[in-house]
């Protein structure tokens, strides 16, 4: 869990060294957010919204922008070079297995261990088929021409690369799916201040006090105890 700070109005949070612009979103450790007086101040006046949640790529991808971009964003990075078709097919196959077998599985830790053990064996057939399909797709249309051979060394390198890319997900380094999914469902954006009850505040307070017979209460507690005991017994018998 981390704390997500979303800026509603431009503001500064000096003790977190943050200078936020409208719509900007930053993540900080829970402990830092909890101890930040400046964050509490800007939160109280509505300049930011604060959520405690798991940070995940999926949420980032689907998070709706809380502001309207005025100028189109200028792409500064050059796009990555197009991957060869065979590599793309292998990656897609590996990704499919990861999604089906790991991310959507209920007991991911046990399954991850098992899949790690069986990975190469289990994937071999699929990869082989995918590679064959990719090769067939790349085959020249004219039957008279000889198909360019994809040598074994290149093929092995591509497969190794794809498997290596998928492995960190299995070892738990990147994906913790079941728990994250559960938390995302139950996630409630909530910030609760601490130190509400200040023991040093001077107060001269006398509260009205009344004393009444406790027979009814004792009887109710006794009956409740008896009912709960019987219920437990019935559940046990079942």
């Amino acid at each position: 869990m981390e704390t997500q700070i979303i800026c509603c109005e431009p503001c500064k949070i000096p003790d977190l060294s943050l200078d936020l612009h409208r719509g900007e979103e930053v993540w900080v450790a829970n402990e830092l957010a909890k101890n930040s007086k400046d964050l509490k101040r800007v939160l109280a006046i509505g300049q930011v919204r604060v959520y405690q949640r798991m940070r995940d790529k999926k949420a980032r991808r689907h998070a709706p922008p809380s502001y309207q971009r005025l100028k189109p964003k200028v792409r500064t990075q050059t796009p990555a070079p197009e991957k060869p078709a065979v590599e793309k097919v292998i990656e897609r196959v590996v990704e499919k297995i990861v999604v089906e077998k790991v991310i959507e599985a209920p007991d991911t830790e046990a399954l991850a261990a098992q899949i790690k053990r069986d990975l190469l064996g289990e994937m071999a057939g699929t990869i082989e088929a995918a590679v064959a399909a990719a090769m067939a797709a790349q085959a020249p249309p004219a039957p008279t021409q000889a198909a360019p051979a994809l040598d074994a060394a290149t093929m092995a390198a591509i497969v190794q690369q794809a498997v290596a890319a998928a492995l960190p997900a299995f070892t738990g380094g990147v994906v913790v799916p079941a728990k994250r999914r559960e938390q995302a469902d139950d996630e409630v954006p909530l910030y609760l201040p601490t130190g509400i009850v200040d023991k040093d505040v001077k107060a001269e307070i006398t509260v009205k006090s009344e004393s009444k017979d406790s027979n009814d209460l004792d009887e109710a507690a006794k009956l409740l105890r008896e009912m709960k005991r019987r219920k437990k017994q019935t559940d046990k018998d079942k």
Partner: protein
Amino acid sequence: MSENETPAAAQPALMGVGLDMGTMNIVAARRQPSGVVTKRIRDSFIDLPKEHKRMLKLSNVNYIQKGDDIIIVGDAAYEMANVFGREVRRPLAAGLIAAGEIDALEILGVMVREVLGDPATENEICVFSVPAAPVDDPSKDIVYHKGILERIVNECGYKAIPSNEALAIIYAECGKDQFSGIAFSFGSGMTNVALAIRTVEALSFSVGRGGDWIDAGAAKSVGATQARMCSIKEKGLNLMKPVGREQEALVVYYKNLIEYALDNVVKEFQKISSKFDMPFPVPIVVSGGTSKAEGFLDFFKEVFESKKKRFPIEVSVVRAATEPLDAVARGLLVQAVQEYDD
């Protein structure tokens, strides 16, 4: 029954506390060898400049000193509001803590600390009341309210356990009915309703109408202030024999509130009726500060009779809680005691 003034920090003898966090009153109940002791403070405050401190000490009113301000809390806040021609502030509005009321939270923290007193042991169990989610206003934030109260109670040195407000009335009043019944808690900020069958909560909800809504509506009808309507109510209003336009206006709104609560029971019960059968007729228990008006029970019965044909639950009897202001706190205490017995 005895009524007296005692210092807030009296040591309890037995374990477990029930804490009713209402819009109008904060009530704590705990067992002592002499019986059940309830402590109550009116959930309101008003801030005054520091120069009034001397006068306050002389007049013996409850106050909190916060920086350069003096904050009067409890019943005296109402009196002072009249003296200085100001409006009283309340930490809870319409049954819930308003997010952003940072000052009010601190005041609420002090009031809860004084009503609870010190825990008998570290992390003594304190079961506190939480309203059910309002069916007519989904924007109201129960989660924040519950979280803040839990934190306040924990910071007072207790182990806080939240529990439904109306369900607590069933624990306090329906022991002889095998903890089965329908409880209506007519509070100041909202009305809470719960249906329980043999301790199991089958249905619970709240509506955002209560005593304040009656005052506001009646005031608007007759062109008076809300404070005046509240004062008429508290001076003694007989719902079965209203006198004058103002009282008649109040009665109209009382009737509407009861009808609204009963209609919502029908509506909410329809959503769950296919899931279970009512094994036997259950009692209806009415409680809460708004139910303290004279003739409320008869008035409720009258309205209920007109709705009975459409009411989906077989009712054995309609009765009032023995102590309408303390019923929730006592029910919560039953639960707290139970935690120790378990």
